[in-house]
């Protein structure tokens, strides 16, 4: 069935200034850390992109822990939650740079490396979320 996309009427969701401020601050920290790390551990166009790989996996682990810690413990914070989740972790990790690195590897005929990079990033990122979530839930259960 072709996707007939019907949009409802609401123009903008309610935006909380405090929430946006928290996301901005988290974004500044996450962006600075990623740019600094990716410049310090830069890799060539035919190398395994270690910096972004490590950033995406560690950021996913942090998000798994933080989102479980902050969301599954009421009351939900309107500052700490956006600061750490959409702000810091969302900005620290990146999708577009990873895709560009894959495209560059493909252009250099490094097909196995590109596929390995994509698969291992997704597998490790997924496991990092799962492990982070599990650790926090178990901690909670025994506390």
């Amino acid at each position, binding site marked *: 069935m072709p996707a007939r996309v019907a949009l409802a009427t609401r123009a903008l969701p309610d935006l909380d200034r405090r929430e946006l401020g928290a996301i901005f601050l988290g974004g500044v920290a*996450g*962006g600075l850390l990623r740019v600094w790390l990716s410049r310090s551990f830069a890799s060539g166009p035919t190398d395994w992109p270690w910096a972004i790989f490590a950033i995406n996996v560690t950021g996913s682990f942090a998000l798994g822990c933080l989102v479980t810690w902050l969301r599954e413990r009421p009351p939900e914070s309107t500052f700490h939650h956006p600061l750490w989740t959409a702000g810091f972790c*969302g900005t620290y*990790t990146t999708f*577009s740079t990873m895709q560009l690195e894959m495209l560059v590897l493909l252009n250099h005929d490094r097909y196995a490396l590109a596929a390995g990079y994509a698969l291992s990033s997704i597998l490790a990122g997924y496991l990092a979320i799962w492990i982070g979530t599990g650790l926090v839930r178990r901690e909670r259960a025994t506390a």
Partner: protein
Amino acid sequence: MSAWVWIGVALCSGIAAIGRFVLVALISSRVVTGFPGAFPLGTFAVNMTGALLLGLLAGLAVEGDALVLLGTATLGSYTTFSTWMLETQRLAEDGQIAVAAINILLSLVVGLGAIALGRAVGMHL
């Protein structure tokens, strides 16, 4: 890299994070029919548009400080890997394995297509 560029990185990252949040909130607050209800369309839209624009920058051969500011800082921050993984894991945890798998495959394939398309367009501009 000069101190001014680092200040620029900080500002671009913060603004891009807000841009991502607002776009995701905008898309999530609307009822979209024709997609599985649980599909994380907001993050998908952000990552695909970010990939397209980064491809465009690459095609236009943007380099140096401009590439750091517009590419690594702005578009790198606008798109996200961790939220994509979190939403996928939570879908799988809820038993929506098919939607989780579609979220991974569609993002990878469409993302790669978007960045290649963006670059091809940029090269011809």
